[in-house]
């Protein structure tokens, strides 16, 4: 993954004189913040055999809430708290539909996607939420000992998710569910609780992402987050997490996000219109899945499975 990232950077540096500038590096990292946070949650969801295709639009909803709070109250601290809280709330809604309602995650979140998209339209009344006060921005774009607050937030989120995944019973249960829900149940794992919690965790991470989004852009437009879910799924499976569940890599997700953003940014700089970005994402997804399917069909893989 690291090699692929470096390779992409080298190619784009050769192709575009604007590419290898520190300003552009900052832009790429800046554009990765939301996707990194959402990607961590998506990694957990996919590892569990779940998915959430509405996650980008959920971020949009939270961003509207945060934006409203910033402009009404002006207190940036309230806005910072409200992001993860509203995110958790929406995570509960998703969990209620998928887990308690026993709806397949992909269909259920597709339904939510439709509902939420209209909700955003109604909430925004067809206009942008713009000209937000800079209080939140001032707070979140500062640096502590030269490191941006966003980097700290991502590091803490990464560490928390990693600990939960690799060092607590929750992580084991999550992977067991991703392997087989039925077997997990037979093993005495509280399947409903774990699945519910994972959607809520993903919601919290999305809420934090929304807070950073509002802080950075200081506006919320109608199409907010519409490609984020696709990007997140692409980044996560690019990083080695199985779309079928049971196996995941958090560090892979980080590199997956960076690679995706490097590609999107680089293609833009060499003159590919941004309309083509979802094509790149889609091709990446299909490429990874195709590769996985092909490598499962190789004689060696069959031999390995036969032994297993």
């Amino acid at each position, binding site marked *: 993954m690291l090699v692929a990232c470096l390779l992409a950077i080298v190619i784009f540096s050769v192709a575009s004189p604007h590419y290898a500038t520190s300003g552009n590096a900052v832009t790429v990292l800046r554009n990765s913040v939301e996707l990194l946070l959402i990607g961590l949650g998506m990694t957990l969801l996919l590892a569990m055999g779940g998915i959430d295709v509405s996650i980008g639009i959920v971020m949009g909803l939270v961003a509207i809430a945060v934006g409203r709070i910033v402009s009404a109250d002006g207190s940036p601290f309230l806005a910072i708290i409200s992001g993860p809280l509203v995110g958790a709330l929406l995570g509960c809604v998703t969990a209620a539909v998928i887990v308690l309602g026993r709806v397949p995650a992909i269909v259920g979140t597709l339904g939510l996607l439709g509902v939420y998209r209209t909700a955003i339209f109604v909430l925004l009344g067809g206009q942008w939420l713009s000209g937000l006060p800079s209080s939140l921005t001032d707070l979140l774009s500062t640096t502590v000992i030269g490191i941006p607050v966003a980097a700290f937030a991502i590091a803490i989120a990464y560490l928390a998710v990693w*600990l939960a995944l690799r*060092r*607590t*019973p929750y992580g*084991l*249960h999550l*992977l*067991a569910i*991703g*392997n*087989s829900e*039925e*077997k*997990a149940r*037979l*093993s*005495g*794992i509280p399947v409903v609780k774990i699945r519910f919690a994972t959607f809520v965790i993903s919601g919290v991470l999305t809420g934090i992402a929304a807070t950073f989004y509002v802080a950075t852009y200081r506006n919320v437009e109608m199409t907010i987050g519409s490609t984020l879910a696709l990007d997140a799924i692409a980044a996560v499976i690019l990083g080695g997490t199985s779309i079928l569940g*049971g*196996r995941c890599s958090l560090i892979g997700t980080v590199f997956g996000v960076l690679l995706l953003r490097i590609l999107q940014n680089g293609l833009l700089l060499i003159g590919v219109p941004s309309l083509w970005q979802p094509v790149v994402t889609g091709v990446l997804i299909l490429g990874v899945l195709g590769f996985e399917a092909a490598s499962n069909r190789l004689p060696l893989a069959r031999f390995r499975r036969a*032994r*297993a």
Partner: protein
Amino acid sequence: MTAPFLVARNIAKRFGALTALANVDLEIRSGEVLALLGDNGAGKSTFIKILAGAHRPSDGEIVIEGSPVAFSSPKDAAASGIATIFQELALSENLSIAENVFLGRELKRSILGVPFLKRKEMRQRVDGLLQELDAHISDPEAPVGSLSGGQRQAVAICRALNLNARLVIMDEPTAALAVAESRKVLALTRRLAARGCAVVLISHNISEVFEVADRIVVFRRGRKVAERLAAETNHEEVVSLITGAHPDVRALEKTN
């Protein structure tokens, strides 16, 4: 003779109009391997599902060490010390042996209210269990997906032992195994009994049953038709009990 660990009295199970099981009386003793034999549909599986808490009996009672129990879920049965090793083992292939053995009952320490896994202790415990069972698995960190069928049975048995199971029910443990692997699993079965566990073994393989079982119970058409000490019967008699050719079974089926 010690008191039995579990007594099943007059157990019946009906699914609508279909009677899957009727009037089954059975005693299961600690330290003993009890084999359940019978044709497909004879009621063996239904019976062990009742013992495992997966089905509720329509009639009859189960008494464990003198006190009646009523299981409403496999969890209840597990709490009473009954572990079932199903044919399709409920192991997570993507997790390690140690993780599987402890799955759902992990050892943990609380740091700031967050439960963290005690990986080292779990590993050591599993190491010990594997050695005790002489299971020939060197690395408890290996994913279960990389193990052979017999090794997976050993992991499932470790899991049962780790849950302090007093009765281990094994549903056709050797059905999918090669001969050498079957040998090992049968040896494990004996070692379980030697540890003081009660073992109920379902099998279609009669010579295997004679190798490990102390007692043999034959089911036929939802009833228990015979119970023999393995030492006091032979292959031919058991086959005739299963097929219904045995005079005892004929007499029994005439009266019903």
